[in-house]
């Protein structure tokens, strides 16, 4: 089985496939590209969170004849961006439901003039009462979406939660909150669109999912599939922020291209990207937990609420993942999760690395430490008593058929971090040191791939071809945006075929060339698409052996010669494979029961945190991450994913706050939206255990999102350890620490002001 096979290329730290171009500054991101006769686009956006548009006025000092103006009336097809539901308009038509909602588009050859002109459009509104928080939406006295403000809801039940309370020795409750988070990819969203009556729409852009954009444009332009072409350009970071948003941006640019008769480039500046595009869903998760006298879980009653913003976009799938990750990596006979995504009049929230899991895992992993404190059990011991093991069932009754090695991962994490010895030392030092130190742990899993029947529905197609000039290409719509798609897929192909790494390239991520291997999301690329490429590679060799005269053992030269013989006979050299679900995957979407994910990655995070009692700042001093995510396809890339995800998780916990006023992000500049710098990120130690998963590419499971799940709870658990104060909400800023600690401290500063 390839998953366990000894390999030459897979598992090696081969250099990043497109690395040299990136290092030379030769890689072409969307703003580096110009098209002949290109104009520039700009967007006029709502300045109120909810209301009717009474009038749109164009300042008379501008010669509008130079500009192309587009409104909803210009849309040839449907005025919606279809992700799951079709509730989000492409352009606001008569009403707005969030600040910064796009209303009018304009294009002009001069990119400065078009910005100035966009600022010269005056819109008058009849405001309607807006809703800004989960609580306001829940009250349902103002309905802003559907019949009841509920974008989506789930109910997950295992056993009989209500029967457990009476027999419980301990019952512990808690409420945990997470704020919005911005992706802050260093390259802003951008596209170039072209339109012609015969050719249809062509899009180049910074994006994760060419076929998502493709699908959205079919509806907006009422075009057949072969009249829309989407090409991903080198993408400077995405993290989910370019999963759905580019569909809107592409539609905007394409509408301007259509109406102006020119290619149109729209690249957001930082202020616009921060204010107007998607972010991570804020959440509120409530736990009520019953345990027996030994600290073993008897029942978990969980309520998950997310803020979805003004339109549903991906809120239902984010809620699904949050629901399925909310019980944590623990065995519990009775579980109930009631979850709802609520509509508010804010910029719609969307995909962001983790996709509901960071929110849910923050809650359960903080809650485990709260339980431990409440019932007098060490937090490590409490987890060990309740970890899932082989053969156990999860909250959805999925049997853990693959090995679960949480104890082993925990042992390694504790050993490497010196957890126990440090806690003893810090307890002593904290008595006199103004910087109080503590250690915190988080244990978690992350489901790889789409939930339940999702992968079956995606029905991904991917493969290999060999061009007439002897280039072996991987054919996928899975994109590179730093995480290593290009490298791992060409590694897999080269390995499986029997060529060298340098022999295999990626076909351009162009819907006109590559099949739909599904979106580049959900930590599915190495596992699902990797496996498709592996199979397609073996299938190619098989085809060449059957029809190209290739022998059992062959050299590089033999291979290419066989390709030519095959091409002469069949016309082209292509090998495609379709997704095949691993056996025994059954998922009931109604009851939320069965195999929620085909595979899980498992992880333990340990944080060492110092809290400075002079400035009330908490800083992560050191961090350890131990994970089991199947076979590591490339140790440099895999390590880089974990380190980067942890840095983002640290930002999520301690630095990154989205400040909304009247539903508009007011700290929409990098100087005021704070991510950790090279001086803030602590030393991060990464350890992989590997249990190859036979249904993943060369045994790989997903790792891209896993590392973002653990830092926030580990850090706040460490803060609790350090100062004995429990914080249940992130981002946790010094001002928040100050408010709690200054209240706890005897009031010395009684001076009047």
């Amino acid at each position, binding site marked *: 089985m390839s998953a366990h096979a000894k390999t030459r290329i897979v598992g090696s*730290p081969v*250099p*990043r496939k*497109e*690395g*040299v*171009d*990136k*290092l*030379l*500054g*030769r*890689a*072409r*991101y969307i*703003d*580096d590209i110009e098209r002949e006769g290109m104009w520039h686009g700009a967007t006029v956006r709502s300045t109120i969170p909810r209301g009717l548009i009474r009038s749109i006025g164009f300042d008379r000092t501008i010669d509008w004849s130079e500009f192309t103006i587009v409104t909803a009336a210009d849309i040839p097809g449907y005025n919606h961006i279809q992700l799951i539901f079709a509730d989000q308009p492409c352009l606001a038509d008569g009403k707005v439901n969030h600040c910064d909602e796009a209303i009018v588009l304009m294009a002009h050859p001069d990119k400065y003039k078009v910005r100035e002109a966009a600022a010269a459009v005056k819109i008058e509104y009849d405001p309607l009462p807006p809703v800004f928080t989960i609580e306001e939406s829940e009250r349902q006295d103002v309905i802003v979406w559907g019949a009841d403000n509920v974008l989506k809801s789930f109910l997950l039940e295992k056993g009989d939660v209500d029967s457990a309370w009476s027999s419980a020795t301990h019952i512990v409750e808690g409420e945990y909150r997470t704020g919005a988070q911005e*992706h*802050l*990819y*260093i*390259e*802003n969203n951008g596209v170039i669109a072209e339109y012609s009556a015969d050719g249809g729409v062509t899009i180049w852009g910074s994006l994760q999912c060419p076929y998502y954009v493709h699908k959205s444009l079919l509806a907006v332009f009422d075009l057949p599939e072969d009249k829309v072409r989407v090409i991903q350009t*080198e*993408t*400077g*970071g*995405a*993290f989910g922020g370019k999963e759905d948003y580019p569909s809107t941006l592409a539609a905007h640019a394409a509408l301007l291209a259509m109406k102006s008769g020119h290619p149109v480039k729209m690249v957001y*500046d*930082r202020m616009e990207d921060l204010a107007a595009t998607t972010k991570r869903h804020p959440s509120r998760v409530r736990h009520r937990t019953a345990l027996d006298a030994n600290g073993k879980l008897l029942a978990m009653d969980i309520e998950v609420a997310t803020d979805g913003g003004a339109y549903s976009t991906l809120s239902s799938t984010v809620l699904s993942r949050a629901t399925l990750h909310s019980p944590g990596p623990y065995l519990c006979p009775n579980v109930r999760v009631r979850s709802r995504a609520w509509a508010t009049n804010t910029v719609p929230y969307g995909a962001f690395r983790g996709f509901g899991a960071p929110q849910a895992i923050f809650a359960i992993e903080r809650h485990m430490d709260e339980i431990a404190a409440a019932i007098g059990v060490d937090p490590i011991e409490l987890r060990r008593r309740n970890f899932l093991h082989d053969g156990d069932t999860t909250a959805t009754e999925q049997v853990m058929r693959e090995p679960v090695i949480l104890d082993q991962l925990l042992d390694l994490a504790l050993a490497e971090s010196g957890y126990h010895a440090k806690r003893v030392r810090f307890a002593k030092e904290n008595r006199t040191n103004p910087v109080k130190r503590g250690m915190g742990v988080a244990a978690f899993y992350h489901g790889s791939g789409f939930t339940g029947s999702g992968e079956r529905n995606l029905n991904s197609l991917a493969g290999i071809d060999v061009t007439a000039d002897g280039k072996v290409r991987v054919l996928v719509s899975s994109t590179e*945006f*730093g*995480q*290593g798609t290009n490298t791992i897929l060409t590694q897999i192909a080269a390995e499986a075929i029997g060529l060298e790494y340098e022999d295999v390239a990626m076909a351009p991520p162009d819907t006109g060339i590559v099949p739909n291997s599904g979106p580049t999301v959900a930590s599915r690329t190495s596992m699902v698409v990797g496996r498709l490429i592996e199979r397609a590679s073996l299938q190619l060799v098989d085809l060449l052996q059957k029809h190209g005269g290739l022998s059992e053992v062959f050299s590089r030269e033999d291979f290419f010669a066989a390709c030519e013989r095959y091409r002469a006979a069949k016309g082209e050299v292509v090998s495609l494979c379709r997704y095949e679900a691993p056996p025994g995957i059954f998922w009931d979407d109604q009851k939320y029961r069965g195999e929620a994910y085909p595979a899980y990655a498992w992880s333990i995070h340990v944080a060492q945190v110092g809290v400075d009692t002079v400035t009330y700042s908490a800083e992560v*001093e050191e961090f350890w991450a131990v994970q089991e995510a199947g076979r590591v396809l490339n140790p*440099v*890339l895999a*390590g*880089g994913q974990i*380190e*980067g*995800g*942890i*840095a*983002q998780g640290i930002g999520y916990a301690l630095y990154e706050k989205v400040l909304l006023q009247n539903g508009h992000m007011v700290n929409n*500049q*990098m*100087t005021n939206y704070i*991510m950790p*710098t*090279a*001086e803030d*990120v*602590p*030393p*991060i130690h990464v350890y992989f255990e590997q249990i190859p998963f036979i249904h993943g590419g060369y045994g790989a499971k997903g790792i891209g999102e896993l590392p973002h799940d653990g830092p926030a709870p580990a850090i706040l658990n460490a803060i609790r350890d350090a100062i004995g104060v429990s914080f249940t909400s992130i981002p946790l800023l010094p001002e928040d620490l100050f408010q709690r600690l200054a209240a706890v401290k005897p009031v010395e500063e009684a001076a009047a002001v």
Partner: protein
Amino acid sequence: MNAGWPAIEFVVNGEARKVHVSPMKRLLDVLREDLRLTGTKEGCGEGECGSCSVRMNGELVNSCLVPVLQVQNASIQTVEGLACDGELHPLQQAFLHCGGAQCGICTPGMLMAATHLLANNPHPNMAEIREGLAGNLCRCTGFKRIFDSVISAAAQTNEPTAQEAAHAR
């Protein structure tokens, strides 16, 4: 380029260049638009992310904050000037080997900051590396492998001090 503006002359990557643009045009835009050197990137326009970093008369600057009039007679080095005759600069080589670039958008600026650091301090310790790169935001790597790349490039002169740069603050 509008020939109505007076000429501004400077050297870029060893080559003399002359532009006729508004004196308030940002050096970043002159490099990218007028000189078609698109390696230098715009990430924020506020001097916060460092992806526009270039070297100006040997100093590290954020080109999004430099009006081109002030570049008169200056010598500019961009990422395009690092490799020599098709051979990667040792820092570029180190980044490739150590995984210092993921999405690559911060990489040109990061390379310029690292070049500047090593030019002034050939064997920086960990604190000095962190400080030298603190003005360059990377959202992908968590910085660790960028630090590794700088240490690796510095070590190529075979000095023992490079090995002391352990991952401790």
